[in-house]
Structures are given as structure tokens and as C-alpha cells.
């Protein structure tokens, strides 16, 4: 069975919610829709206070090249456009909408019928994806239309679909592959048409045998698409790791996957592309896993963007007593929330409730030079060195040691027997080095 070669760790999987079917979460009273839910420039609001909006209506326009449109996820009135604490822990501009009924914008097909024929041309598909505000649903939230446009002089020959879900606990992609497989496969075909490639590979880790079987049964109807079971290893869901595992190509340092003829999309993104292209439905809801060892009912919800995270936790049985941290995302790369009323955004794949005993960090000791961090780094970096360089503010040395290649997967922090905050320090180094490089290139 295939996997990537360099490094990797095996955290306990704990997929508690993998048998919980996707439930639709009831509408909240108000939704808070942040204007910056994607990588790149925040969108500009096109509604004002007091406007009444329908679900699916454009409320903020992404005007830069790397930006994304934002649509209202509910119908109601705009209460205010103000700074609200979002999942980043900082106050950012957001549109607050009071929910009144559930009226959708005209032209959106809400039926569950599968539409297989792709009538749009490749250019139309890209502009539709752009228009409907689709971003990468794996967590990095990179605007998808940018990925679907192959730059001049480059060619894509294979589309890679990321169904790995290597983060422990999370099951939103797993459930999507089981319950919305056909829609997702049509979505993949749409992306293949846009990119003009005739081959697509869905990578799925073999801890999801039911999803693999289900997809295997369906793929004969969809020419060009294949399913590849992968050996379980974290961080296989990383773009570069997945390309290495599936087609054995190495993306050069500082370059994008298109350099080696690959385009990588998440299964959630493929489903969103299907809905945007075939059903004219913008990205206004997503599947979110709510799980944790103390949670009464670990579940997978379809939540509208902007729903307070507290609502999801409530629907899963409330916060268990000894909870130490509420994490937005997976246990490896997710970030603890400072406010559980922060809204669900396009990149929220899971909410984790960790008991106090499991969240506290190990006491920090001196580095014992065991080299484990270097041996498990999936990018072949030397985390101990980068951390020291960053904490001594030697950012030009960080650059020569390729700190910008770090994918912040957290494997080094996970493996370190001395409990050193390696990733924390490397992140500072990455930030500062990035700033330095941007200043130099200006």
C-alpha cells in the first residue's frame, strides 16, 4: 500500500464520530459571517445595516485575485457590520444577520436529485466557482477558482482528490464520502473538465474501509476516476505528502503542485463545486464534526456558515464537565478557541472538546538532541535547529534552513520527548522570515 516516504507520525486515531450520520443543524437566531474566511484579501461588504437578505445572496465581494465571494447563509435582516471575535481570537469585520424564516435566493436548486450532465464550458465552470465563493474545505481555505486556472506555460495532467482526513478525531470528509459520494464524483468530473485532465485519483487512508468500498462500487460509472487506499500516516493530507504518496512526484521547495502537473482538491471542495455548478448553490454550509472523549453524542452536522460554535456543541450534548480546551480543527493543527461564540467559517472542519488532563502540555525540558523531530519531519527539515534560530531572531539563517517549507503539521511538537514548543517557535520564525522576504521583494 502506498504512502509518503519522509517522516510522519502515528497519533491515536480516535475517530469517535465515524458512524454518526450527517445531521442538519437547526438554524440559529443570528449568524455572524466573517469577511475574511479565506486566504488572501478580505471581501468587501455589498449590503448595509437594515438590508433584508435571502439565503444564498451575495453579501460581500472578493475583489482581489486571491479572494472569495461571501454569501448569506440565512434569510433575514442585516443587524450590523462590526468587528466580532472570530476563530482566530482577534476581532475582525463580520456581517451579523438576524434569521427570519428560510427563504432562498431564486435560481438555486434545493432538490436532492443528482444532476450528472455537465453543461458548462471550462471557463464557465471557473467563473461559477469564483462567483459562488468556493474555497478549499480542508482547512487552508485557498480560493478554489485560482487552483482551477492552470497558469500559462504549465499543464496539469492529474487531479488529486484529498479524502485522506489524516487528522485524528475528524470524520466530516469520511461521512461526506459515504453519504454524498455520487455528488462528489460528479464534482470531481466538473473539476476534471475545468482543468482539462483525464485522470483523477481519490486518496483515502485505509482506516476508512467503508468509504473505500463505497467509492470503488461507484467509480465504474465515472471514467477517469480511481480510488487509491493509502497506509495510515500523519500528515498524509498535506498537499505535498499526498502527491508524493499517490503519483510519486516531489513538489520543489517554494513551488506549487502545478509545477509537477498536479492539482489537489479536498472531497468537501468537490462536493461544494458540484453544488455550485449543477445546483447554482453558493458555499453557505459545510459539514462539521463535533467530537471529543467526553462528548455525549459525537456527531457530524451540516451547519450554515456563521452559526455560533456554541450551538453545535449544544446539539452534540453540551460541554462535558472537565473540558480543558475547545479546539477549532483537528488535534494536530487546530487552534484552541478563546470564545465559543465564534462563528463556523468555511474552513471549520471540526470542533474538538478535550478533557483538561489531555490538553495540558508536557513540562518543557532541555533539548536532548535525540533527533526525533528531524527524523519525523515530513518536509525533511530540522525543527530543533529552526526553533533555536527563530528564538534567537536569526531569521536569515531560518531562510537558508528552509523555514518557509514548514507545513506547520505539528509532528515535531507531538514527538518531542522534552516537550519543547518547537512549532510555536518555528511559526514565529516563519512569520518573521515571510515578512522579511516580502519586504525584500517589494
Amino acid at each position, binding site marked *: 500500500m502506498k504512502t509518503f516516504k519522509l517522516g510522519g507520525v502515528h497519533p491515536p486515531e480516535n475517530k469517535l464520530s465515524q458512524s454518526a450520520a450527517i445531521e442538519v443543524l437547526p438554524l440559529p437566531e443570528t449568524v455572524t459571517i466573517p469577511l475574511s474566511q479565506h486566504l488572501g484579501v478580505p471581501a468587501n461588504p455589498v449590503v448595509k445595516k437594515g438590508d433584508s437578505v435571502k439565503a444564498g445572496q451575495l453579501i460581500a465581494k472578493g475583489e482581489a485575485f486571491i479572494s472569495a465571494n461571501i454569501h448569506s447563509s440565512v434569510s433575514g435582516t442585516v443587524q450590523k457590520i462590526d*468587528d466580532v*471575535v472570530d476563530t*482566530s*481570537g*482577534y*476581532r475582525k469585520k463580520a456581517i451579523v444577520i438576524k434569521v427570519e424564516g428560510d427563504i432562498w435566493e431564486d435560481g438555486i436548486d434545493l432538490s436532492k436529485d443528482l444532476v450528472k450532465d455537465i453543461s458548462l464550458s471550462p471557463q464557465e465552470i471557473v467563473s461559477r466557482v469564483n462567483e459562488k465563493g468556493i474555497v478549499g474545505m480542508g482547512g487552508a481555505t485557498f480560493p478554489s477558482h485560482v487552483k482551477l486556472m492552470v497558469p500559462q506555460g504549465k499543464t496539469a495532467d492529474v487531479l488529486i482528490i484529498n479524502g485522506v482526513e489524516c487528522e485524528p478525531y475528524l470524520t466530516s470528509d469520511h461521512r461526506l464520502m459515504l453519504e454524498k459520494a455520487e455528488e462528489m464524483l460528479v464534482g470531481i468530473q466538473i473539476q476534471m473538465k475545468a482543468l482539462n485532465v483525464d485522470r483523477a485519483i481519490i486518496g483515502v487512508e485505509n482506516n476508512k474501509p467503508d468509504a473505500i468500498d463505497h467509492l470503488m462500487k461507484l467509480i465504474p460509472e465515472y471514467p477517469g476516476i480511481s480510488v487509491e487506499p493509502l497506509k495510515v500516516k500523519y500528515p498524509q493530507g498535506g498537499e505535498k505528502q499526498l502527491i508524493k504518496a499517490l503519483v510519486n512526484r516531489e513538489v520543489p521547495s517554494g513551488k506549487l503542485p502545478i509545477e509537477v502537473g498536479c492539482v489537489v482538491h479536498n472531497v468537501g471542495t468537490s462536493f461544494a463545486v458540484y453544488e455550485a455548478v449543477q445546483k447554482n448553490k453558493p458555499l453557505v454550509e459545510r459539514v462539521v464534526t463535533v467530537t471529543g472523549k467526553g462528548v455525549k453524542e459525537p456527531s457530524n452536522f451540516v451547519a450554515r456558515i456563521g452559526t455560533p460554535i456554541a450551538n453545535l456543541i449544544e446539539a452534540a450534548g453540551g460541554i462535558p464537565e472537565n473540558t480543558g480546551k475547545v479546539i477549532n480543527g483537528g488535534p494536530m493543527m487546530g*487552534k*484552541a478557541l*478563546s470564545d465559543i461564540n465564534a462563528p463556523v467559517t468555511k474552513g471549520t472542519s471540526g470542533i474538538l472538546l478535550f478533557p483538561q488532563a489531555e*490538553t*495540558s*502540555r508536557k513540562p518543557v525540558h532541555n533539548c536532548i538532541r535525540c533527533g526525533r523531530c528531524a527524523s519525523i519531519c515530513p518536509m525533511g527539515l530540522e525543527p530543533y535547529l529552526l526553533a533555536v534560530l527563530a*528564538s534567537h531572531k536569526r531569521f536569515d539563517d531560518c531562510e537558508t534552513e528552509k523555514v518557509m517549507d514548514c507545513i506547520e503539521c505539528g509532528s515535531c511538537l507531538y514527538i518531542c520527548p522534552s516537550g519543547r*514548543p518547537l512549532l*510555536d*517557535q518555528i*511559526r*514565529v520564525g516563519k*512569520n*518573521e522570515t515571510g515578512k522579511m522576504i516580502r519586504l525584500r521583494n517589494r
Partner: protein
Amino acid sequence: MNEITLISVISLGSLGTIAAIILYMVAQKFKVIEDPRIDIVADKLPGANCGGCGLAGCRALAEEIVKKESLEGMSCPPGGNEVMGEIAKVLGLEAKEQDPTIAVVRCSGSRENAPPKVKYEGDMTCAFAHNLFAGEGGCPKGCLSYGDCVASCDFDAMYMDHKTGLPVIKDNCVSCGACVKACPRSIIEIRKRGKKDRRIFVSCINVEKGGVARKNCQVACIGCGKCVKECKFDAITLENNLAYIDFNKCTLCRKCPPVCPTNAIHELNFPPRRQRPETKAEPAEA
């Protein structure tokens, strides 16, 4: 036996002489003529290499002074006017008296004023915490209290008050500016030391709306503008919901601190007020 000694002495001696001649010639050829005044000026400087003058170190400042033959725009924060005066005397130049400066901490978000809402367990440096979240107290501009500034101080002029969680600047601060650079939130500012070390400043840099800022911190500047109206010298400006006192215009009249509804304006080293017993609690040392 004698012969061997003689031969070796002669051969080694002549080798040495030849080498000495070559070395002397090379030294003459590649001689760098350095202005002797640089050494004299460098001797006068404190030698702390703090970088407060904006140059790489004391020697660099000495070179710069001698090269430019003027003291215009040069200053040595640790040495102050005394050292600059001495240098001026040696070089026959004129040194402008500069007002002594000191670093001030423009945040009073202590644990009492801005109670922590979340617990932070990551790397205990401000640089990382600043990238991660708004801070335990919730103020996105406030002091994170992990002490990057204290670690950067070469003069032992700062310490962390563990009760309040705020850095304290001692009187031996030489205003080199290392802490200003170290603070990711730009809380620390270099200000005029003031007559008899008396200073008045707004101890807040939060630009959020009044209500939002106040929710996180009791002593935040809420941008009400009362102090601006009170000031007769146009020293206070209000921008982005934040008042700022220009230390070049401020006459230390002490009219503004009592009108501040949140006690965000601090006055330091003044004698206690007599006529106004209702004046609020003594501001924290900064």
C-alpha cells in the same frame, strides 16, 4: 658542538630578520590610516553597544561622529548630554542639549484591571502569543505579560511585576529602545523624561470602540475626548478612539488626569494633590 649552535643561531637569526623586514614592508604597504580621534571619541562613549543611537555600536557611532564632523542628530541615550558634551569638547564642536528620555509602558491592563478570560499554555514569548491570539485578557493591543521586553533589556532597567503581569521600567533606564523593538504590540514608547522625572501620558494604546475596549479592561482609553477639551495647550489629540499626549507640547499642568473617567491618564512622580481629595487611586508605577 659549538659549530652547530653557531649555525643554528645564525640561520634562525637571519630568517627572523628577513621575515621582520618583509612584515615591516607589508605593514607599511597596507597601512590603514585611521583618524586618531575615533579612538578618543570611542573611549568617551559608555561602551554598552546598546544600539540606542541607531548604529551598530559605540565604535560605529564614534566613526560616524568623526566622519561627519558634527554632532547634528547624534545622540547617546545611555551617556546623555554629559558624554556628548565631553565629545564636543574634544572635537571642538558644539553639542545641542537634548532632553533626556525614558521608556514608558503604555498599558495598565494588569490582571486586576483586565481579568484573564482564557489560559495560555504555548511558548511563553510575546512574539508567538501575539501571532496566536488577542491575549489572556482579551485586549488585542494590551500587554501579553510574557516579558520579551525584559529579556531584551541590557541595562537591568526592567522587571516583570508578577502581581500585575506588567513590565516595570526602573529609573536607570537609558532609553536605548531595545524593549520598544522587542514588544510585538508596540506598547512601550520613548518619551521625554520631563522636569524632575515628572511625566503625564495616556497609559493605553487600544483603538477599539470605547465600549468594546472597556469590556476587556477597566482602565482602557475609551476615546471620550474629555482630556482633549481640558487641555489648553493642544497637546492631546484624539485619533481612532485613542487619546495621545504630545510630550513636546505638554506643560505638565496636571489638568487632564482627574477628568479621565477610566483613569487611563497616568501622572508620575508628582507630589500628591492637595485640594482634590476625591482624586482616584494612585496610578500604578510605570
